[in-house]
């Protein structure tokens, strides 16, 4: 981990850090030492579960199941990882997770961006009603819809298909709201110039508006992807076939003939954790920004 992350450190140190430090802590030594200690303790507590999991995953099952406070109880071995990869389930689920989260993100972003732009600029009839409905829908927790949605999938004969996992996840009123706020703040002059030049509305959108909105679209995409990647409830409800399950659902549902084996369960947990952590190490700034902008509802 540290090997991949080292270059980030030198590049990513916020330029404001030194200034902020003097603002918050002043120039006294004591606050600085106290803050440093608190930070170190919190970080240790937050990293401890990872450390313990990594250590357990590198033990043989016998060593993992022997008591003791030290996480390393015997010789290190990658046996657990080999078992997991040989069985192949985790690979299938990871593939499904990528496919599903990818398609959910693609469809959500396309559909929401178009709609947000339409809501922001359009003057067509029914716009206000549709917009009001969309905003009101932000209050609806999707979790309350699992029963009627499952019934709907029964009706469409889609239970145990990728389509059933993906489609209900692409409705994201919150993302429409965030994107619309962004578009509202973009000056219209550029678009109007293009319109005068005779460009079609789609062309105006694709070649004038979209290039300006790349950061917010990226933020929304990242946010939607993380949400879909980690979504549990709906994929859990609508997939029973283990070949269609995502990582979180498969790991929680499908069991092993041998029963619980701690080294292997830690190994599979860490393998499942890896993709997004790696992505984070590479796109730290982007992801942080996307959470901040979308999480705050664009404000």
């Amino acid at each position, binding site marked *: 981990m540290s090997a991949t992350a080292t270059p980030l450190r030198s590049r990513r140190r916020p330029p404001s850090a030194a200034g902020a430090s003097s603002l918050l802590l002043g120039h006294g030594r004591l606050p600085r030492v106290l803050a440093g200690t608190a930070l170190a303790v919190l970080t240790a507590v937050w990293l401890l579960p990872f450390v313990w999991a990594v250590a357990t995953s590198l033990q043989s099952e016998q060593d993992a199941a022997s008591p003791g406070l030290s996480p390393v109880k015997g010789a290190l071995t990658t046996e657990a990882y080999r078992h997991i990869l040989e069985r192949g389930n985790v690979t299938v689920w990871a593939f499904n997770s990528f*496919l599903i989260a990818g398609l959910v993100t693609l469809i959500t972003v396309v559909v929401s961006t178009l709609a947000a732009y339409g809501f922001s600029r359009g003057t067509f009839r029914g716009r206000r009603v549709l917009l009001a409905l969309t905003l009101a829908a932000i209050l609806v927790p999707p979790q309350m819809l699992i029963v009627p949605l499952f019934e709907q999938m029964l009706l469409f004969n*889609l*239970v145990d298909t990728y389509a059933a996992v993906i489609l209900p996840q692409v409705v994201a009123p919150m993302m429409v709201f965030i994107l619309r706020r962004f578009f509202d703040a973009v000056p219209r002059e550029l678009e109007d110039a293009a319109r005068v030049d005779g460009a079609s509305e789609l062309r105006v959108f694709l070649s004038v508006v979209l290039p300006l909105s790349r950061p917010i679209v990226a933020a929304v995409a990242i946010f939607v992807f993380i949400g879909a990647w980690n979504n549990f409830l709906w994929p859990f409800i609508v997939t029973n076939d283990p070949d269609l399950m995502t990582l979180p659902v498969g790991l929680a549902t499908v069991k092993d003939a*041998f029963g619980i084996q701690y080294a292997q369960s830690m190994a599979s947990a860490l393998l499942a954790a890896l993709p997004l952590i790696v992505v984070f190490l590479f796109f730290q700034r982007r992801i942080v920004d996307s959470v901040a902008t979308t999480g705050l509802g664009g404000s």
Partner: protein
Amino acid sequence: MFTHPSAPPPTPASGAGAALTRRRLLRHGTAAAGAVLAAGPLSGCASPAAADASALSVWDLFQGGDGMLMDDMIKAVSAGPEGFEVQRTILDWGPSYYTKLAMSAAGGRASDVAIMHLSRLAGYAPGGLLDPFDLDLLAEFGVRRQDFAPAVWARTQHDSTVFAIPLDVHPFIVFYDKEAADKAGLLDSSGELAPMGSPDALLDAGKALAEATGQKGILFGHVTDTAQTWRQFAALYAQTGAAFSLPDGGPPRIDVDAAVRVVTFMQQLFDGRTNPNNLDYYGALAGFLGGRGGMVMLGEWELPTLKKSGIPLGAAPFPQVFDKPAVYTDSHAFVLPHQKNPDPARRRRAHRYVAEMVKQSLTWASAGHIPAYQPVLAEPQYAALDPQSSYAGAAEVAVLDPPNWFAGAGSNFQNRMCQPLQSALLGNTSAEKAVRQMVREADALLRQPNPVA
């Protein structure tokens, strides 16, 4: 991985375990992606059949010892001359398994074969969640109705259609330390546990065993368990000869006097001195393994664990202390979860798989289960299994949960019956109050509209 890179042999891959090959992954994944992207969002895609057209998908809830034996059996049947590829999926025992089973059947893309406790059949067959077996087809593969004990076979049907083929009968029994039991004078001339015949005899046996071990007599783990006290109660209640049924709309038909007699006896038996009343499941198991008791009341499925301990192990059907011989049991059975468009050839293969599997039940018996397929019981190898053969008779007097959609193994019903019984055993409530509470709980469940009728 179970890949055969060169010269694929005519025998199919030994597909036990939920193994997926890279080839399958890719085929499956790209097909699905293509379907979603090209054919539009509403096209369904990638059914299990598309993943691997030939593999039979089977579901069960066996982990640990049972799980590995199931693997062995699947390997054995799939390796035969006309073997087949089997993709096995294991889910968590209990409500999570039964929920997924029902949801997959409702969705119409369920597995080809699944394991179900017979006590749960009433929650699945009437609601159209199971497809019936074709008995002629099974007969073709050498399995007929007369091969099963009538007490068990009677529970495989709904509206006189057969929906389940039992693999085993697994009673709630007693295990005992042969040396301690001998010292306590509880063995008959053949070295088996002598019949009890009365409540007092079992109470005395507990005292004698406590004396013989110098510790406790009879161990029973039930604290926070969601089935154990119900098993114990149901075993004893059935012996009183009183009826217990669960008619929709309520109230439950239960003989309250007999139930109070049973709970009072349970309180006497687990008095906290001779026989502890506050053990949990693993506490009782560990206690018996550690020699802290002469007898333990458990399901026979714990046999492999107990056998490994080296204790001179005896086993017997749950002792008859009231008027009528009866043993509380359940049965793992094969069912065909509902599929919307079953492929006849696949269905045929599913039948053959079930037939081959019940014929393999000698392997299954090594876990302690009594094979439901009786020709196996007649084999000399089975008679040689010790102590399994000492409780094989339990199948003849099998009593299962009263049939209703909400009852059976791993159900909310058993859980709710256990709460008052646990309180009674822990001394927090009287036998009368506990029974009244049980009646109330059962009544509340019965007054819910029946969702499968």
